């Protein structure tokens, strides 16, 4: 950074005494944060990329070219995790968005208790995934957990009771249920912000035109909300590729490999198998996925803004 600065200083007419003093002060105020930023964020971003071309194991490593990336295509553990993560994302994101939007629409009115409900809907989002995981494990316990007890009481046959976290068929679905339950309130708040920005005049106009509630939603609310919807979806999608806590607390990637996801693989390869070079390659695949989504967002944002 210093170099760049010097060059700019030399390239342009010399800074006046006062200007230079201010520049020095400016850098000084930046230093405490910048040093930490450099050491713990900027350097690791580059180092991680370099490491992905090595077989670093925590102590030593050599450059092995693209071997790590080539290995990804053969590694069934990685491929399973990738597919699982896609399934997780493609299921949890739409469910979260729909739930969050419904909550926001329901609360976007003068209604007795609306503020109270907002508080309650948002609350799970603040609690830790560890605590949530602990209680979920008991609630969804196949033998005598309250959920299956309820299903039993409703007349579901013993053989048909879901095994929730304990079956390869339902484990991912159970994780998704818990995640949607926990995070919907977070995105609800964002939707509420978007709804607030829609001008009341539009509703007024629609009402004068005699549109019913459903028509008003499709012709006013939904199109006016689309920039928010787009952004919330992107954000939710990005976070969905970073899912880890709930899985490590409840299923630990199992049963079998049913809930193994990308970050879980990175963690295992890096900190259990000490294959840090290989884990870095997976980490950069993750980065690439998120980068792609972000770039889509940038392009899309422009389009959306123009649309409206």
């Amino acid at each position, binding site marked *: 950074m210093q170099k760049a600065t010097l060059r700019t200083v030399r390239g342009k007419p010399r800074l006046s005494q006062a200007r230079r003093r201010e520049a020095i002060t*400016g850098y000084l105020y930046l230093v405490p944060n910048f040093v930490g930023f450099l050491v713990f964020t900027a350097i690791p971003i580059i180092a991680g990329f370099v490491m992905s071309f090595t077989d670093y194991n925590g102590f030593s490593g050599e450059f092995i070219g693209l071997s790590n990336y080539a290995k990804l295509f053969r590694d069934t553990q990685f491929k399973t995790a990738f597919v699982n993560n896609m399934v997780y994302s493609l299921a949890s994101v739409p469910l979260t968005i729909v739930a969050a939007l419904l909550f926001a629409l*329901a609360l976007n009115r003068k209604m007795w208790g609306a503020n109270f409900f907002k508080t309650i809907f948002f609350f799970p989002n603040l609690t830790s995934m560890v605590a949530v995981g602990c209680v979920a494990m008991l609630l969804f316990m196949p033998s005598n957990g309250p959920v299956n007890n309820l299903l039993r009481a409703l007349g579901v046959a013993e053989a048909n009771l879901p095994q929730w976290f304990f079956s390869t068929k339902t484990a991912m679905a159970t994780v998704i249920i818990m995640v949607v339950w926990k995070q919907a309130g977070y995105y609800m708040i964002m939707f509420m912000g978007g709804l607030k920005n829609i001008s009341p005049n539009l509703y007024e106009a629609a009402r004068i035109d005699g549109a019913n509630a459903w028509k008003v939603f499709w012709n006013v609310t939904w199109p006016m909300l689309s920039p928010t919807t787009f952004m919330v979806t992107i954000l939710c999608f990005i976070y969905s590729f970073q899912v880890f806590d709930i899985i490590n607390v409840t299923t630990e990637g199992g049963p079998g490999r049913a809930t193994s996801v990308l970050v879980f693989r990175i963690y295992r390869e890096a900190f259990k198998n000490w294959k840090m070079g290989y884990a870095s390659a997976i980490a950069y695949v993750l980065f690439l996925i998120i980068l792609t989504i972000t770039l889509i967002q940038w392009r899309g944002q422009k389009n959306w803004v123009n649309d409206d």
Partner: protein
Amino acid sequence: MHMIAYQTLPRRKKRLRPGIVLIFMFCVLVGFLMVVPFAWMLSASFKANTEIFETPTRWIPAVFRTLNYEKVWRDIAFPQFFFNTAKLAVIITLMQLVTCSLAAFSFSKLHYPGRDKLFLIYLATMMVPWHAIMIPQFIIVKNLGLFNTHLALILLQAFSAFGVFILRQSMLSIPDSLTEAAKIDGCGTLRTYLTIIIPLTKTGLITLAILTFNTIWNDYMGPMIYLDSEKLFTIQIGLASFRQQFSADYGAIMAGAVSSIVPVILMYAIGQKNIVEGVAFSGIKG
């Protein structure tokens, strides 16, 4: 779903409609689903293990037993975990407030070459997921001799780009004329920062503080990677490892979970507005 549009109409007269009753019932149902796991957790934490899975669930325990809390708070190092987490959360939050507000001040009110380019780099790194860089971070921390120390977690989290971003944003809304006037009056940069900028950024600072505190309190993966000795454990890994060791001691696990959530509830009660604002804000930015 019905009445969505009508309510926002400002001049609409108050009338109880069937639509709003349906919506209210929908909210009650969702609210119930949101609260039930916590209610069940709380109820189970006061029960003996044999009583927890009784059907139908007895929401209010027949006898309030404190044995689970005694176990968690006396026999296990929960007080230590609590103290460790609180210590980390307070130190990291304070450090973030200082380093981020200084940097935000520099980015928003001081003028020097390369400033905006540098800020753009900050912004760009915000989209790099932490998981993508945790391995090199680990190697750096290990080489600094900080593995299995609280200092590792402090250093990793004390310099957040997000914090700089959020504070810069609220400092930008302070008119430059104010800082210029102070300058003309002979007010030094440091005094401008302390007496003008900081007081006017109070809301932003409080929001950042609460969000950071909550993040650190709930952090699971960081402490899991960096902490090895039990005496250094935070509440989340303490709870997780307790659950692994005593997976059948349901009541005690629930007591631990409840204990870990209480501070979050308190914080939410105090700073609800700031938390909600913070979320809405991080959404605007995307």
